[in-house]
């Protein structure tokens, strides 16, 4: 069973660095949802002033829930955005688990970034990153 249905990674200029999703009929719909949710990400990171303390965490939490799935977001300090879509029916998935998934993603991304053969801004083609995401997607909980 898949935990994560769809996982995207965007560069600071909002074009995709990495796209991965469970092959299905509605793949396109997920991509569409993820791109729409970027607006919410943008909104969350641009709020200045009030409620600063909680806004300063890298993990953004639930971006928006729909009937069948939930969209979560994470933004690194370098403004690289990670968006994950999970199935709503999977109620065993807690906020903390999502958070640690993002942390893992971020750690892997840092390794990619520190690879001297990788050009910042290029699509991610690292096998290590690939296999980490694959492992995360099917992790049975």
């Amino acid at each position, binding site marked *: 069973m898949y935990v994560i249905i769809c996982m995207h990674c965007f560069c600071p200029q909002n074009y995709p660095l990495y796209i991965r999703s469970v092959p299905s009929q509605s793949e396109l719909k997920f991509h569409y949802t993820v791109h729409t949710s970027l607006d919410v990400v943008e909104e969350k990171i641009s709020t200045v002033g009030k409620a*600063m303390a909680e806004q*300063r965490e*890298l993990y953004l939490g639930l971006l928006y829930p729909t009937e069948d799935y939930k969209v979560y977001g994470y933004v*690194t*300090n*370098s403004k690289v955005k990670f968006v994950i879509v999970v199935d709503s029916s999977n109620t065993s998935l807690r906020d903390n688990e999502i958070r640690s998934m993002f942390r893992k993603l971020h750690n892997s991304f840092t390794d990619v*970034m520190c690879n001297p053969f990788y050009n910042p801004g290029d699509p991610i083609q690292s096998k290590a990153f690939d296999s980490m995401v694959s492992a995360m997607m099917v992790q049975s909980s």
Partner: protein
Amino acid sequence: MADEALFQFLHNEVIQYVNSAESGDTENGRCVSKLENMGFRVGQGLVERFTKDTARFKDELDVMKFICKDFWTCVFKKQIDNLRTNHQGIYVLQDNKFRLLNQLSAGKQYLDHAPKYLAFTCGLVRGGLSNLGVKSIVTAEVSVMPACKFQVMIQKM
């Protein structure tokens, strides 16, 4: 202590190498920009690693403070001694005992070699800032040997 020395030796060798690769008579402008570009890429990677567990930055000044404190401590084992700004996008970072110049003779003798030893660091700062979303131009100046100033000009978009 050993790792400090390693970085310094490597840095010296990189300068030697780049200098000899850009053979002889051409002025060392190309050498400096090559070192600067190396620093840029390294800075990008380093910042990605260092900011992994820090909270999001409030503003530009917050980012500069991070560079002066955490970033500098990680790379040079000390903080910047003085940070000044005109609040209009110019920051001056002063290091009174810059580690990469520390082994050079303190007199005026090697003053004209100093730019080579600062180029990498300029790139490091520029790369770090750019990865944090701040476009800038970084220049360095030395008046008395182990002390140096980095001027960061933020480019508004």
